[in-house]
């Protein structure tokens, strides 16, 4: 029996969600998802992204995080 670790399990679950069981949305039905606030990108501005990079050890962006951290 294969023992999957948590990330693998999550990935498998999300992969199943992606590939199966969803309603197919026709092109003419995509008005709502075309809105700017429906983007799957980060909606934070540059200043907020910088603050997040500095404050969170898990957030990538070493160059940005090393500047403006107020640390030595």
């Amino acid at each position, binding site marked *: 029996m294969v023992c999957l670790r948590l990330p693998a399990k999550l*990935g498998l679950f999300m992969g199943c*969600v992606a590939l199966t069981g969803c309603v197919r949305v026709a092109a003419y039905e995509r008005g709502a998802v*075309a809105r700017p606030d429906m*983007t799957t990108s980060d909606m934070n501005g*540059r200043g907020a992204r910088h603050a997040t990079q500095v404050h969170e*050890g898990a957030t990538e962006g*070493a160059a940005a995080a090393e500047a403006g*951290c107020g*640390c030595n």
Partner: protein
Amino acid sequence: MQLRCVAAACAAVTLSIASPSAAAGPSPEGRVATEVAGYADTDHVAVLTPSISGHVEDPAAGWSVDGSYLVDVISAASVDIVSTASPRWTEVRQAGDATASYKPKDFGVTASGSVSSEPDYFAYAAGGAITQDLDDRNLTLLLGYGYGHDTIGRTGTPFSVYSHSFDHHTIDAGFTRLLDRRTVLALTADLRLENGDSSKPYRYIPLFSVQIAPSVPAGATVQEVSRLRLPETVIERLPLSRQRFGLTARLAHRRPRATTRIESALYGDTWGLFAFTADGRELFDLAPRWSVGPHVRYYVQSAVSFWHAAYVGTAFAVPAFRTGDRELGPLMNLTGGGTARWEIGPAETPERYVLGLAFDATYTRFFDDLYIRRRLSTLGALTAEAAW
């Protein structure tokens, strides 16, 4: 772990889903935006960040180009600086990035690059990503790779005289899926491999005797630390390699007069740091030209395996790895704020000119640190955007 090249590629992914027809317009479209952000916290750090960005695309041809430039002006007299008897310093960082994408049909490619420069730190990165639409553009797959090189030095000393560096490779894979007419889900997995010395040359770590170290309280003041520590201090030293893994999910759902956005992320790395993030944002259509809404974010992380608030050492033996970077220690952030967006364009195209305002306040709790146990920070940003 959020990768800039992924963000750019995700934007392209969203665009492809949102614009199923390639007949959006015969000529290129563009957008210019500027933002001025200000940050201040109770640790006496203030940052002013003006930035400008541009975007040009030709939906019919399938190409787009993005670019941005920003300046960080940092003024700091944090406790880390005070503890080394250093005065307040002010520093300027400049950064720029560019992204080009081409997606004439269902297959797309994206290339990106970025540069960041300040007196004691220089970094550059480049990357690429490919995307593939499937299932009548209801599903988009993403695969990306990036490389970066960071050089760390000392202010006033040329990099050729003193510096060290590290490289990082990033691999990211994910998908964006339309769950229904009003819901989009994106999931991205990131792997980042770092090799080299990322230690900071300014970070001096106090050492304590084996008898004293356990009794050093979290949040001990500069005076207490000075009284308890050994005369010797050592410079920060971090492991020379690190593998970081992140999994991020974003869900956006549109209701008749509001948009809900939820983000959650899991993170782990070979230094022993594990983190969880939950982020939520609601945007209400207050009026035809106005949208406002709250923003909340929760973040918690464990410490790296070699973390100690009080390191034990002697004149002859010091810990192999030691750090004073409290973002490698155990902490929790709780953020609350909001955004407002005001479309001020002409009646037929109100979104042509947009003003935006964002404000966040973050409470940080440091669970096992010297000098500081909590921090309150505020961030405000004003944006202006014009499109044609």
